[in-house]
């Protein structure tokens, strides 16, 4: 339960959790495309996932601060500042990915989901992330969660996000095996071939 008297501060606190859960939802959708549709992520797809996690670290920082102490304006600005920086980098990667496949009759990389390819959804995600972080910074006086606490909700969000990072670590390691870089057009999980489990 939230322990703050001002509803608008509670809204700001809830927004932090919605932000992280939104990123988790997009990253989970990436896993569904990978494992259900069987489409392996290319290096740019993995980089977009990395920047989504780096963007979510910002709100995670604010949530973590709220668990031990009152969140200050400095904490709030640091968290959303990190999100904006990572989102701008992620948007650059997504834009590059879109431009690679923009020339007709290129069908694009992988399947379209609701009419758009995953990297286009990634650009939309980064754009929304920048807008949300910007609005939060503009309205920081109203939205910063001064004394807001929701220990159970925050713990659940932190566990979900931690699990998604770990899952991405294992998936990326399986994809690249003992090589420095991911193959530009991956067709198999290199680790199993490097370990001679598959031939």
């Amino acid at each position, binding site marked *: 339960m939230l322990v703050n008297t001002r509803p608008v501060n509670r809204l700001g606190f809830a927004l932090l959790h919605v932000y992280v859960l939104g990123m988790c939802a997009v990253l989970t959708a990436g896993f569904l495309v990978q494992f259900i549709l069987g489409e392996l992520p290319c*290096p*740019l797809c*993995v*980089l977009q996932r*990395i*920047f989504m*996690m*780096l963007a979510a*670290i910002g709100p*995670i*920082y604010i949530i*973590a*601060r709220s668990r*031990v102490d009152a969140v200050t304006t400095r904490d709030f600005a*640091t968290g959303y500042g*990190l999100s904006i*920086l*990572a989102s701008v*980098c992620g948007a*650059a*990667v997504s834009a*590059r990915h879109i431009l690679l496949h923009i020339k007709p009759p290129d069908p694009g990389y992988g399947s379209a989901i609701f009419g758009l390819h995953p990297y286009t959804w990634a650009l939309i995600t980064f754009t929304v992330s920048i807008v949300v972080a910007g609005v939060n910074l503009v309205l920081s006086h109203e939205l910063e969660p001064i004394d807001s606490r929701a220990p159970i909700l925050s713990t659940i969000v*932190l566990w979900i*996000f*931690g699990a998604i*990072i*770990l899952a*991405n*670590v294992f998936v*990326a*390691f399986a*994809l*690249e095996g003992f090589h*420095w*870089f*991911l193959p*530009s057009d991956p067709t198999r999980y290199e680790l199993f071939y490097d370990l001679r489990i598959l031939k």
Partner: protein
Amino acid sequence: MDSIILLIIFVVFVATIKQLPRPKLIGMWAVATVTSLLIFAHHATSTLNLNF
């Protein structure tokens, strides 16, 4: 490299929860971000014939 960066992100995540000092957190986050950007630059330029 990508799995190493993801591992760094996990370390940053754990350090954030454990309340490490702010400069250390931002430093580790910056290492992961800059390394990712360098990988992006590598992928963006590796197929080009750059003759400066």
